[in-house]
């Protein structure tokens, strides 16, 4: 189908006022203003068998080159529901994460997700399930998502979940959408559970030998402290490491946690004078490298996993969430080395997710690589169920 004909068909679907532009490569980039027009685009794309890509703010992952059309949700960028007394918000997918955070702060509310990267969009954070160090104290992205609207590959809108903080009505489509990199549909809005803005927020930092810091982190956990973040990281894994301990509670709670940390770990902790900047810089670090991997590791297996990463992947920005156990590594996008690492990690039962990589590398590696026995078939059935003609260009598994 000619470019002009595709554009004509798209125009008929979305109307005259919706921007349709030529993006990188040959893809037409369309920016629908609402979920109904998003669904209509997908319905047409499904009927026409057009490959469809999705781009967020463009700051995390690259645009898919082999998509015929790319949906850009940036026109859907509002808070559509906010109840500060119930601590619930619904934000559209194209909204910048920093804007959402600022809006919530104005209302005394807070969302304890600190995604890696900069200028991320709400849809990107949820679709990629990219939590940051706060995962230690507050859980993964999926633990904060109460509801979402998902536009499927055949142009249906699934309004999953609800706006209340507890809900078991029906199957949990929200969990399927969160962290699946868009394999089952395009997220158009997300409802989050919020917290009141913390009364006190302090960060302690210690520097030194990796394993000594890790032992200190385990000692902090064994004392029963529940830090908001317990992150061990290094720009160069052969150099000094940093243990960042973030404490969020009431004033009394933070003081008690500081005492617990001091009593548990024989380390010269310093209190960070500007914790917010420290964690913001931490989040931005992984963008300095072309590829970012996430590895699930039980806490006590972290030393072995960090050694394996150093050996197989080489140097890179490395950050370990000590509890519940995950490592984010950013470095060179070397397909062969990543494949070898993935193979070794699978033997240790460590799941590896390629969060971001140059598009051609990602097409080979896939976000998730290979699945365990029987799971690939299940994922295939689920993808077919929500995208019967396979229009979403999502390299979810290895080529």
């Amino acid at each position, binding site marked *: 189908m000619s470019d002009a004909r595709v554009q004509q068909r798209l125009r008929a679907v979305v109307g005259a006022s919706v921007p349709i532009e030529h993006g990188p490569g040959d893809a037409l980039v369309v920016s629908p203003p609402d979920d109904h027009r998003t669904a209509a685009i997908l319905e047409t794309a499904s009927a026409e068998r057009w490959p469809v890509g999705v781009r967020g703010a463009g700051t995390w992952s690259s645009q898919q080159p082999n998509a015929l059309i790319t949906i850009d949700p940036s026109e859907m960028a509002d808070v559509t529901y906010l109840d500060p007394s119930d601590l619930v918000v619904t934000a559209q997918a194209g909204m910048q994460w920093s804007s959402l955070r600022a809006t919530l702060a104005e209302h005394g509310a807070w969302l304890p997700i600190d995604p890696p990267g900069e200028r991320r969009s709400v849809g990107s954070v949820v679709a990629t399930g990219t939590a940051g160090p706060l995962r230690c104290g507050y859980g993964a992205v999926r633990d904060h998502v109460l509801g979402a609207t998902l536009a499927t590959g055949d142009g249906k809108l699934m309004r999953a979940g609800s706006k*209340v903080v507890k809900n078991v*009505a029906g199957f949990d489509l929200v969990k399927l959408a*969160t962290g699946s990199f868009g394999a089952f549909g395009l997220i158009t809005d997300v409802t989050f559970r919020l917290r009141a*803005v913390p009364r006190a927020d302090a960060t302690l930092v210690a520097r030194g030998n990796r394993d000594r810091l890790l032992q200190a982190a385990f000692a902090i956990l064994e004392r029963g402290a529940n830090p908001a973040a317990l992150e061990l990281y290094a720009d160069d894994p052969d150099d000094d490491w940093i243990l960042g301990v973030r404490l969020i509670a009431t004033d009394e709670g933070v003081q008690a946690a500081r005492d617990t940390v001091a009593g548990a770990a024989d380390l010269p902790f310093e209190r960070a004078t500007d914790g917010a900047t420290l964690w913001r810089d931490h989040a931005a670090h992984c963008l300095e490298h072309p590829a970012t991997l996430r590895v699930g590791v039980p806490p006590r297996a972290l030393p072995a996993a960090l050694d394996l990463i150093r050996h197989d992947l080489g140097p890179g920005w490395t950050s370990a969430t000590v509890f519940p156990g995950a490592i984010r590594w950013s470095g060179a996008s070397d397909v062969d080395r990543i494949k070898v690492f993935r193979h070794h990690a699978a033997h240790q039962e460590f799941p590896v997710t390629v969060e971001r990589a140059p598009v051609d590398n990602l097409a080979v590696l896939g976000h998730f690589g290979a*699945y365990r026995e029987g799971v690939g078939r299940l994922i295939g059935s689920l993808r077919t169920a929500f995208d019967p003609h396979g229009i979403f260009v999502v390299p979810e598994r290895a080529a």
Partner: protein
Amino acid sequence: MPLSPQVRAALVRIVSDRWVRAASAQLETFARDALPTARSIPGIVVLPGTRDEVIRIIRLLAHHEVPFVARGAGTGLSGGALANNDAVLIALTRLNRILEVDPQNRLAVVEPGVVNARLSEAVAEFGLLYAPDPSSQTACTLGGNVAENAGGPHCLKYGVTSNHVLELEVVLPDGSVVTLGSRSGEPWGPDLVGLFVGSEGMFGIATRITVRLLPTPPSIRTLLADFDDLTTAGRAVSAIIASGIVPAALEMMDQVCIEVVEASIYAAGYPIDAAAVLLVELDGATDDQVAAEGAAIEVLLMRHGARSVRAASDAAERARLWQGRKKAFGALGRMSPDLVVQDAVVPRSALPEVLDSIRAIASHHGLRVGNVFHAGDGNLHPNIGFDRENPDEFERVEQASAAIMQVCIAAGGTITGEHGVGVDKRRYMTDVFDADTLDGMARLRQAFDVAGIANPGKVIPTHACREWTQGAGRHV
């Protein structure tokens, strides 16, 4: 269609005659779960003792396209574990081993028949606990908790079952075995653990469950506040949530519940002239921290209309206050032969108005309703006493339940927060989900279970998905 003798004989070959129940008197004991308004006699009951037996049973049933229903302790409140006479009920209570406790990584691996409270007892020596604590925790099983995504009072701070399940071994309805998730909790691909938890037995049977354990809080403080009216108590809940202090639990009971608890062997010392009591539990790393937060909450409660606030003076008093709350359902059983324990969730700020509406509905239908619930989550449990032998009263209970659901939906809420849809709430699914979303759920179900043999007839309202049922699975 009744089950064939061949299927029965094959089941006996797998588990031996001792673990197959086929006599009508035996089947009758499996005809109900804890939902008193529904009853269904299964075709046959089988009690496997190992995961391999579960796998062989499901392969057999898949081969013959025989529906099956998994059942734990039968404490479910939505009729989710009821089986028809064409189905095999697979009772999993014999799979009750704690397979592994790994205190260093704070996890445990269990079989589905392990009773919830037993796990916390078993890991207490390591200073750990399993957080989700349904009121039925001394009887309900972890497999059932996974199927229903069970909650409990302490889920306000620590989250429901799905927040604590790391990895699952699942026998799919075609008899194949898959492992979902990982011991770190990191998904292995899309989050199929999150999808499976709460799927009400319609995606397969979990045979091994890896759960996260939490450290036992070093310090705990339990407060009891009493109020002159429910509306004021509801507003105090909103004030606590907005304060930034997250209690471990925040539970409310109304006057009906207070009266029956205090008249029972579970009497906890609740003031019987109060219209409502709030039970607020705080936990933390040190006594100083918890005392300071407790003092702040106490001030807040008094400022928002509490008549008095008192703290449990020791562990025994704390246990007594909690016993009253957790056994309230049992105590309510004394007020009538049968009790419907309803379950719905509303925005927390809507609690006062919704509680008023529930009172009006009960009055309109001439019924006695007691409310005991997870106020911090907005998760209501109106308990309606009745006599199932009285058809008129039974009908009024059904009407009142429906009216309560509609009030909760209109307030921006949903129809179940922790009991599941089962057979009881299917009729309301179209009130909270549109046709496309329900169709999406049907598609999910089909991806896991093409033949539709795992717990058919639950969750999805058949009439809302006619196209799907005509085009695909035999059972829904």
